[in-house]
């Protein structure tokens, strides 16, 4: 299995899209490309299991290493473990549904689909990179197109939002780069500096350097995943973005940050992770509670989902900050679950918006009557968001809670209880939104003749829902993928504890 395919395929698709003419050809090419991505990611899953079953227990499978820039010892080093694989599958599922919901995108469709597929390349590259420099490279690849996607195809105050998002994410990248350089210049592998993740993990960066550069890397990646107080790009960015970009942004982009916090900051600088865990937990608890309460006051469906994303991504950071095997497994599950669920939510909101031309909750009403499918999707996304058993949100959140509770310190306990309490608030805002928008009497007469979902929308929702339900019902498949990776990370941090 050659991981380069994951980069090559989107790249070729993007090039092919440039040679297409008209919406029909473009979207067909995009669908074909993203469909192949989906197949490829599942084939990857299959071969991953084959390798593991064959007894290959190296941490990173499908390893490949090419020299890129000798003078600075930068390599193009790729390989995946279960955590990365889970994120890759998430990406492919979100991308294909994003393509499907943009099926009728008329204006500048070629550029739109090109950027969308190009973004997915960045995401795949980020997840498979084992070299910090190439990882950073792909992180940037996944930022810039979003500026264009929001700025050109967005709605509302799109220029402002696009600029805000791009600037804040660039700020995050800058911090990340400081962190990465710090690690690079403090590493000494056979007398040379290195960006290689595997080598750095076994080298163990000096503790005083960790203490300086951990905050840079963690906060930098944290900005991507809406770490309080750097989350304000989320509501504006999401609400201005076109549906597919919102799905990508919330479903994948925010996960780049979580993955980076875990894989780069925590894994490579475990001592600092322990030292700073109190602060991380404080910030994530604030994000969870405060995000949830702020959501309650929103009136725009997209804002509701954006703020709830802040709250839900708080669970990811909380799980990472708690530093137990269970909580980190939970954090990764939450990333996957939130990615699918929030993409589904945005898809449903997009479908509603394209028909009713409003996203203000107070103006909507009784949609269940006219578009039962879309309303059903909306309610399923809502129920998953509030952590109903049978959907992925439940297993992910409960795993985080169980893992978090293993820390006996009073402050950690308090943080866990507050995080648990947020699920009640989640229920409040989800049910308020659903109760008004989807249920209740029809508020506007012209709603009565609106059509229900078309085949492409049904397919998109179906793909995401099946992901949510499969994780919700057979979570052990996902945990079996994630747990070894989490164990490896905990092993690092565990050693850090012993060294103290």
């Amino acid at each position: 299995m050659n991981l380069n395919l994951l980069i090559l395929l989107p790249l070729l698709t993007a090039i092919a899209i440039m040679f297409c003419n008209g919406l029909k050809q473009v979207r067909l090419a995009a669908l074909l490309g993203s469909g192949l991505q989906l197949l490829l990611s599942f084939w990857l899953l299959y071969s991953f299991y084959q390798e593991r079953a064959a007894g290959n227990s190296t941490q990173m499978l499908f390893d490949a290493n090419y020299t890129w820039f000798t003078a600075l010892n930068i390599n193009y080093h790729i390989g995946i473990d279960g955590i990365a694989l889970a994120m890759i599958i998430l990406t492919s599922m979100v991308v294909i549904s994003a393509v499907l919901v943009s099926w009728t995108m008329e204006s500048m469709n070629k550029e739109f689909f090109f950027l969308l597929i190009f973004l997915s390349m960045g995401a795949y590259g980020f997840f498979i990179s084992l070299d910090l420099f190439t990882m950073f490279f792909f992180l940037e690849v996944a930022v810039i197109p979003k500026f264009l996607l929001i700025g050109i195809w967005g709605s509302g105050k799109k220029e402002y939002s696009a600029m805000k998002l791009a600037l804040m994410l660039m700020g995050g990248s800058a911090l990340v780069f400081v962190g990465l350089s710090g690690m690079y210049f403090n590493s000494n592998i056979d007398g040379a500096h290195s960006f290689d993740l595997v080598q750095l993990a076994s080298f163990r960066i000096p503790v005083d350097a960790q203490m300086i550069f951990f905050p840079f890397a963690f906060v930098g990646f944290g900005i991507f995943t809406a770490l309080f107080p750097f989350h304000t790009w989320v509501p504006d960015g999401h609400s201005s973005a076109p549906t597919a970009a919102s799905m990508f942004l919330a479903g994948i982009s925010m996960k780049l940050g979580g993955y980076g916090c875990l894989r780069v900051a925590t894994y490579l600088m475990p001592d600092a992770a322990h030292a700073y865990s109190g602060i991380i937990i404080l910030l994530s608890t604030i994000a969870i509670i405060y995000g949830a309460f702020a959501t309650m006051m929103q009136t725009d469906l997209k804002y509701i989902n954006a703020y709830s994303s802040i709250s839900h991504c708080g669970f990811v950071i909380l799980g990472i900050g708690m530093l137990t095997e269970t909580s980190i497994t939970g954090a990764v599950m939450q990333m996957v679950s939130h990615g699918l669920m929030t993409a589904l939510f945005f898809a449903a909101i997009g479908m509603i918006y394209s028909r009713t031309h409003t996203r203000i909750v107070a103006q909507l009403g009784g949609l269940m009557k006219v578009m039962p499918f879309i309303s059903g999707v909306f309610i399923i996304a809502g129920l998953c968001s509030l952590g109903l058993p049978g959907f992925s949100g439940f297993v992910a959140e409960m795993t985080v809670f169980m893992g978090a509770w293993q820390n006996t310190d009073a402050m950690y306990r308090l943080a866990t209880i507050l995080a648990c309490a947020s699920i009640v608030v989640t229920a409040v805002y989800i049910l308020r939104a659903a109760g008004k928008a989807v249920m209740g009497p029809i508020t506007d007469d012209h709603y009565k003749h609106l059509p229900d979902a078309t085949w492409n929308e049904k397919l998109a929702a179906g793909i995401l829902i099946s992901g949510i339900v499969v994780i919700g019902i057979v979570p052990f498949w996902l945990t079996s993928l994630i747990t070894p990776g989490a164990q490896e990370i905990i092993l690092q941090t565990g050693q850090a504890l012993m060294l103290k």
Partner: protein
Amino acid sequence: MNIYSYIALIPLLPLATFLLLGLFGKKYFSSISGILGTFTLAVSAFISLAVAYSYFFVNGKVDGVFQQIIPLKYTWLTFSPNVSIDMGIVIDPLSVMMLVVVTFVSLMVHIFSLGYMKGEERFATYYAFLSLFTFSMLGLVLSTNIFQIYMFWELVGVSSFLLIGFYFEKPSAVAAAKKAFIVTRFADLGFLIGILILSFHAETLDFQTLISRLTDTQSTQLMGITTASFMGVSMLTWGLTLVFMGGAGKSAMFPLHIWLPDAMEGPTPVSALIHAATMVVAGVYLVARLFPVFVFDAAALTIVTYVGAFSALFAAIIACTQTDIKRVLAYSTMSQIGYMMFALGVSGKGGEEGLGYMASLFHLFTHAFFKSLLFLGAGAVIHLVHSNDMKDMGGLRKHMPITHITFLIACLAIAGIPPFAGFFSKEEILTAAFHSNKLIYVLAVFTSGLTAFYMFRLYFSIFWNKEAHLHGEHHGEGTLSMKIPLIILGACALLAGFVPIADWVTSDGIALETHIDIVFSILPVALAIGGILLALSFYKTENSKSDKIASSLNGFYQAAYHKFYIDEIYLFVTRKIIFNLIGRPAAWIDKNIVDGLMNKMASGTAVISEKIKGFQSGKTQEYALYFFLGIISLSALFIYIIK
């Protein structure tokens, strides 16, 4: 190969029905969805009865003690090597009894709904939701794992939400559904934290292991949980109290009861199933399931007792003043569950001590029949008069004889008149209370008098009082499918008291000798008859006696009529405190302070650039001047300062 191999079918059949009807029902089986749902549930009910027979009479006992059997268990989600969620099925007297109650009542409701919900546009959806509920409830009672119970707990919550909000075009139904879900969710927060505490100290989520570890005085786990304390209270008490909080939410105990009366917005058969017979007793079931651990902790058990007793009395008082018949029944449900709760609270473990435990579950058993009967009867009445209000009813006995008779039976049963079902179970509860706590006993006896009064107030107001004035065409008593469940449940309400629950469902698995003491029974029965006579004199015919009493008790009556303003207090807390003092400031801070800071940074950059852009004036001579000054200062720098 025995009957237990088929036991997984009991919950799975309704699940299959749910999926089938939920996904394809509207398109393909709209007309036969009711029959389909009813039929599969009948199979489930039949298997349940077979399991019950096999367990109670054939192979449940070893040496006179009922054993716990776990025919199925799969690891579902592993948290850490010894803490995992296992999906399994537990067979013990408690779960078998619940199995029978749930499938039986659910079957009756399915049959009743065939007539009651006929012609509804979302008929298939209705049956899909009913199946979902039945599946979740069965999963709940069969749980082997405390987290499994939590999962199904949430699922019954959501099916209750969907069913209360079934008429989703009515804003009041949507509001009630939301309220029910959010209040129980709040209670479940306690449950969840309780689980976290118990499982952390017991190092397991499995009921069997958890109970054995926390009841063994030698175990390190028990030592750990009792020595660890928070705010001067041991973690065991915290854990159990929080778990009870979850149970209290689901079982509508004071002060988490506010959702139950509003939940009556749902279709009436749903109220009969979920909000009378099955889901609301989940709290009792939960406490009973963890009873061996509760016995170890007097503080938690005392809380259970007083919450139960207070709720029983509180709800009974409110029930006397309500005029919406479903709300009266809702409060009476709350009151009866209060009985079950305090019966558990006053109980001990083993032998005679365990009378309360047995009595509580006995009452759960009998209550399920007569209360669902009352609701279905009320449903039939509402079906006829198209109103929930007592004032619109009266004199209906001639129009609906079967409903009238069965309703009367149910009222006698709930009032505790021998030989109806309620008499036996209530007698056991009172005996248990008498032997344990006199205060509780006094409250309970008084409440039972009140129960008789408000039930017969309801009965007389519906079936006697003024002459019936039904306008327009009406369809008599309803279809055959509505009458059959009433008759069957009527028979059960009459006879369920003779079911030897005491031989089966006891705190230690050993049959308990019970005897009804005639002398002891005189007081409660006399009070009940007194209550009935009072209701008779007030409500049999139209008169103003009741109004006079009400006006003489003005303040208190008003308070009770307004449900002691608990709703208003909640509304105040949520609207004023949570929304205005937390939500709004949070949103404001986000917009103005956090985001404001980001925007300030951006605009700050702009301001600085505005300030310094004057240097770029476009005037060549100015540039030359800067250049010249630069050279001079640099020369000075290099010549005089850096030598």
